[in-house]
Structures are given as structure tokens and as C-alpha cells.
């Protein structure tokens, strides 16, 4: 059934809310409701509610859980405390990325992992392959969970209306388990993919519509609107967050992507360590750089980057930044060329000067 799209538990609500639904990573997902720019501003200024139930989930438990995860993940898992989460990459032996994920520590020997939708099946197979011979089980929980992202400066105030969980005390990347809008067994995590404050909520699939409705109701007076994957992409790009298949991939390593902070060479061994170490010490052949344009046109994925007449890279992601009011993007650029400056990008046959950016476009 190659053409069959999966539907999230919130699909009926999307239809009711008038979302524009598009195929994404095998799912039919809302790309927008009222409009990408309006939804983007809502997240920066008030709050947005995203259905991100297409994301995959796996549970890893057993005496060797830490051993497995510290072998497959570039970041350190042994030091992660229960109730906390950590961003990490899973690498191939050559340093390319299998996926980037968030690992939640549920207990001494139990972890919960949030996986990219397009990689979930591959990730679970990868984890199971490397679990062989260890005392650990990898449970596929993809269909068990729905996931909502409540993102924006009003997120905390809105969440307070539907739960008594002590989430206010949670620091970034900490989480609590409990009841949200009468739904038991939810996980509320102070994480997000937008660059605005907020929460990601994992909830039992069958409770998703009820909880989403309760949040939308509670948040409406505070400016909460439903937000789609279109705004999610422009928000994450402004924040400088990588997207698998763009800034990281099977051929773009975390070192190239500027994610060296999530690669812990202090660990004696993990998959990809030697290749990544060579890149980190010698400098990678190319690396990811963010840019903006003082132009009206957007440089999109695949657009060629030039230094003079020499092609030195290509665009990985590009969009209009609603916050800056101009085009932004990311590009993979050959070593030394970014620092030299004077780069241009080809947009439909015209060379447009690139303004390289040291950090994210929003703080």
C-alpha cells in the first residue's frame, strides 16, 4: 500500500478546523490552518498548538538500556537523570546521521525516545540490531502515542488551565508525567522545535482529540490558534534547528551540522566516534551555515552557492522568515569558503549575495 497515508488521532479535528492537509513522511498532516505567516507570528507572540503525532516513539528498557544507548547515541546517556531529556544524534559508522532524537530517562533502566516520523521504522530496527546480545528490549510505541506541541510565550499560562501537574518548576528539557485535561498517562516536557518557550505533550492516542480541544478552548482568549507543519518549518529554521534530510542526513554528520556539542568524545566508544573525531580534529570538508538574503526571493533547497564562479555549496533549507521579514536559509558550504565571504546563491539564474549568520535568527 505505497500510497496509503497514515492518519493521526487528531485527523478529524484537522478536518473540522479547516486545515489544509498534505502528505508528509507517509502521513496526511496539516500544513496550515489560517496561513503559515499568521500561525508563525501566533507562536512568537502568543501560542500555537501543533499536532506532531506523526513523530515516532520507542521505549528502551532493561539492565543494559544505558549500555545500548551510550553505544548508539553520540550524546552521553549514563549521566542523564530520571525526569530529564537530552537531544542526541544516532550515527552510522561513517559519521552520517541515522536520525536526531530526544531521549527521555523514565527510570534507572528505562528510556523513552522521540523519533522523526520518516526515520521511525529505520531507527527501531537500528536500535534492535545493536541490542542483540544485550539485556534490553526495544518496544515500538509509535501507534500508542499522540503528540501535541504547545509553543509560544503563553504556553505556560494555557497549560495551567488544563492540568495540575507541577510543570512550572520544570526547566528546559525536564518533564513530568500525569493528567492533562482529564487524560491520564500524559508526559509533559519543556521542549520544542520552534525557538519559542513551550511544551511537548505525549498523550495516549485515544485521548488526543479531547486534550487538543481542551487546550484550544483554554487558550483561545490568550491568542492560541492551531498551527501546522508550514509554520513549524519556518519557526525551526529561524531558531537554527536542524531537520533530518536537510541540515543533517545520512551524508551530513553532526560535526558538519554544528552539533558538536551533542557529540561526546569523552565516551570511550560509540558508533561513528572515529569518523566524527577525524572530522572534528581535521575540520570537515563542508559544513552547514545559516544565511539571510537582502532580497525578496527565497533561495530554496538545492539552489547552488557560489564563490565567484566556483560552485562551493548548496542550499539545504530556505523560507521566508516572518520575524525578520526576509528570506533565510541554511547551506552546506565547502571548508574555508564561508569564512572568505562574498558568497552568492543562484535563484532562477540570478546570483544573490548571501549574508551569513553566526547564530540563530531568533534567540
Amino acid at each position, binding site marked *: 500500500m505505497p500510497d496509503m497515508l497514515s492518519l493521526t488521532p487528531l485527523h478529524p479535528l484537522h478536518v473540522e478546523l479547516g486545515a489544509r492537509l498534505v502528505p508528509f513522511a507517509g502521513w496526511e498532516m496539516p500544513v496550515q490552518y489560517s*496561513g503559515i505567516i499568521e500561525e508563525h507570528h501566533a507562536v512568537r507572540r502568543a501560542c500555537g498548538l501543533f499536532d506532531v503525532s506523526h513523530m515516532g516513539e520507542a521505549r528502551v528498557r532493561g539492565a543494559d538500556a544505558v549500555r545500548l544507548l551510550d553505544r548508539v547515541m553520540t550524546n552521553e546517556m549514563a549521566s542523564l537523570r530520571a525526569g530529564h531529556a537530552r537531544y542526541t544524534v544516532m550515527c552510522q559508522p561513517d559519521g552520517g546521521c541515522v536520525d536526531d532524537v530526544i531521549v527521555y530517562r523514565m527510570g534507572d533502566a528505562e528510556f523513552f525516545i522521540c523519533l522523526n516520523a520518516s526515520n521511525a521504522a529505520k531507527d527501531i530496527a537500528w536500535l534492535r540490531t545493536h541490542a542483540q546480545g544485550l539485556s534490553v528490549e526495544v518496544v515500538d510505541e509509535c501507534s500508542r502515542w499522540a503528540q501535541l506541541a504547545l509553543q509560544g510565550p503563553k504556553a505556560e499560562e494555557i497549560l495551567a488551565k488544563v492540568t495540575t501537574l507541577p510543570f512550572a518548576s520544570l526547566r528546559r528539557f525536564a518533564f513530568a508525567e500525569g493528567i492533562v485535561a482529564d487524560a491520564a498517562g500524559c508526559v509533559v516536557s519543556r521542549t520544542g522545535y520552534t525557538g519559542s518557550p513551550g511544551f511537548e505533550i505525549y498523550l495516549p492516542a485515544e485521548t488526543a482529540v479531547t486534550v487538543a480541544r481542551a487546550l484550544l478552548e483554554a487558550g483561545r482568549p490568550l491568542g492560541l490558534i492551531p498551527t501546522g507543519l*508550514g509554520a513549524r518549518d519556518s519557526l525551526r529554521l529561524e531558531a537554527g534547528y536542524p531537520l533530518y534530510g536537510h541540515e543533517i542526513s545520512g551524508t551530513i554528520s553532526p560535526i558538519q551540522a554544528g552539533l558538536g556539542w551533542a557529540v561526546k568524545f569523552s565516551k570511550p566508544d560509540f558508533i561513528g566516534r572515529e569518523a566524527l573525531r577525524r572530522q572534528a580534529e581535521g575540520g570537515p570538508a563542508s559544513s552547514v551555515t545559516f544565511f539571510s538574503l537582502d532580497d*525578496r*526571493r*527565497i533561495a*530554496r533547497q538545492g539552489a547552488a552557492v557560489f564563490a565567484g564562479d566556483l560552485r562551493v555549496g548548496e542550499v539545504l533549507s530556505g523560507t*521566508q522568515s516572518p520575524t525578520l521579514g526576509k528570506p533565510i536559509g541554511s547551506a552546506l558550504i565547502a571548508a574555508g569558503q564561508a569564512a572568505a565571504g562574498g558568497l552568492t546563491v543562484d535563484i532562477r539564474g540570478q546570483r544573490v549575495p548571501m549574508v551569513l549568520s553566526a547564530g540563530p535568527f531568533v534567540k
Partner: protein
Amino acid sequence: MSQVPTDLRYTKEHEWIRMRPDGTAEIGITDHAQSALGDVTYVDLPKAGAKFVAGDTFGTVESVKAASDLYAPVACEIIESNSALDGAPDLVNREPYAGAWMIRVRLADPSSISSLLDAAAYAAVL
């Protein structure tokens, strides 16, 4: 359901053309097209005097999601491009058939418009 005014002619590529009393014509993109594009951020239009034959790319409309070529419905010469779209490209989303006309043209052959779709025929391709 997107709007399809009955007093215009259309192309399958979702452009509309409106004949004016002075014999010139205005060209823009349809409600269906703007809705499919989503938030328009930029419209790149030709200068006065530029000439096109039917099917030529005369400009580009860019949204957050994608850049799409604009095609000349009939052979024509540009009299004026709509400068209001430069400062307010979102007019394309708000008023696709009014404020967001894109080019005003002189037709090479005024009868060529009869080869285009009428509202009923365009509505049928949606």
C-alpha cells in the same frame, strides 16, 4: 470552494484575464491558485514594453511554500505591472481578482481571448 467570477476568462494554469472597456486587459491568478500557494511573499513582474507569446513565463509568484511561474494566457505586450504588489504581495491572497491584478496588457490579437476558458469551463477543471 474557491471563487470563479463569471465576467473573466481563465487558463488551466489558473490565470484570469479581464477585458477592460479601453481594449486593454488585466491578468492575475485565481482564488484557487492563491489558496494553493498559501501566503504570497513576492511577485516578480516584467517591465512595461516587454512582449510575450501565449504560454511564455512573464513572471514569478513566490509564497512561503514555493515559487511558481506565471504564464501569459495570450500574446501580449505589457503596459503596466501592478506596483502595489511590491509593497503588499499578500494582496494576492486577499483580493486575487481585484487589487492583485498583476499586469495590464495590450493583446496582440484581441480575438485571442475567445480561445480561453469561460468561468463554467474553468470551474470544471478545479
